[in-house]
């Protein structure tokens, strides 16, 4: 039990995927202007990241390892993620048009979200079993959503602030991310 707790705290707060490991920066900067969009993106990434974590672990354990073809990891994983995103998109489109409309534009972007591939590779590198892989993926996804929502909240307020013209948009967002990242460094004493 304690092990799982350490994985959760570690992934959400200490090694936050965006603020400490720099994965998934593109959506973090691109989709954090509006709070509603940030929540949608967070949900979509959570969904895909957990499924991808599960499937890549299964493929690594039951296909790549037994046949000793570990060097195909990168190709296999990116194909799994691409196919998964396509599949999820079709399923959601058929069974929940409302959700599809809400997530629609974010889903294709997730294939090239390095957070998904990154977490899938981290799961394998850390030698997790199936249970830990799922907990690790869920907590990293929650950490991503947390960072995205916090950022969106701050950026909505920045809209009405008087920022020097050259710093508007992405530059100021990066400076804000730096301050957030400093704050998250404080969590490193937790474990």
């Amino acid at each position, binding site marked *: 039990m304690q092990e799982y707790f350490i994985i959760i705290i570690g992934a959400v707060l200490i090694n936050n995927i965006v*603020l400490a490991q*720099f994965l998934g920066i593109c959506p973090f900067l691109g989709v954090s202007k509006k709070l509603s969009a940030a929540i949608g993106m967070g949900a979509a990434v959570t969904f895909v990241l957990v499924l991808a974590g599960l499937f890549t672990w299964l493929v690594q354990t039951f296909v790549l390892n037994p046949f000793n073809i570990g060097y195909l990891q990168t*190709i296999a994983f990116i194909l799994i993620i691409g196919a998964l995103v396509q599949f999820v998109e079709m399923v959601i489109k058929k069974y929940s048009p409302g959700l599809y409309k809400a997530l629609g534009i974010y889903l294709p972007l997730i294939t090239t979200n390095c957070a998904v591939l990154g977490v899938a*590779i981290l799961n394998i590198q850390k030698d997790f079993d199936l249970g830990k892989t799922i907990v690790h993926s869920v907590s990293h996804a929650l950490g991503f959503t947390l960072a995205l929502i916090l950022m969106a909240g701050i950026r909505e307020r920045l809209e009405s602030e008087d920022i020097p013209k*050259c710093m508007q948009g992405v530059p100021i*967002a990066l*400076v804000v991310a*730096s*301050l957030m990242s*400093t704050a998250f460094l404080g969590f490193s004493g937790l474990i």
Partner: protein
Amino acid sequence: MSLLNEFTKGIIKENPLFRLVLGTCPALAITTSVDNGLGMGAAFTAVLLGSNIVISAMRKIIPDSIRIPVYIVIIAAFVTMIDLLMHAFSPDLYKALGIFIPLIVVNCIIIGRAEAFANRNSVVPSIFDALGMGVGFTLALVLMCTFREVLGAGTFLGVRLFPETKAAIMMILPPGGFVTFGCILGFLNKLQAKNA
């Protein structure tokens, strides 16, 4: 002349990192020392060169409707090669770059160049495009590395410039990456506004 243009546009006018703001993840993560920056830049350039050559050579054979998956497989193949080569020939660098070598697969610059350039041009211009973009990305990485290594560790390419106790360690921690990138982008915007 036009080939020279293809080469130079990637370095300044369309610099992938500073002007198009693509490929930000490795740029923030591995720019803690100039060595890492050069290594990442070289790996990235090699992959981009390979994928641009193959994709431009095969652009008439690849069916339009499945071109993106085909690009991804081609890019992933080159990334795997670079990954294995680096593991064999420079294990230290391999360790320092870690997870960001396989993640070159999802670097938006490479798939972006495949879609925007290699898909529409023949092999020779694509080579120059890849070299230009690669050099542009490498120079941008090295610039960020220089700021972070000098301020954060007090060294440049491992040579000590001032004592470690005077260095602001924050600059090589994650916050330093964000703030360096933000300030460089802001400064470039200012420069552009002045010239316009």
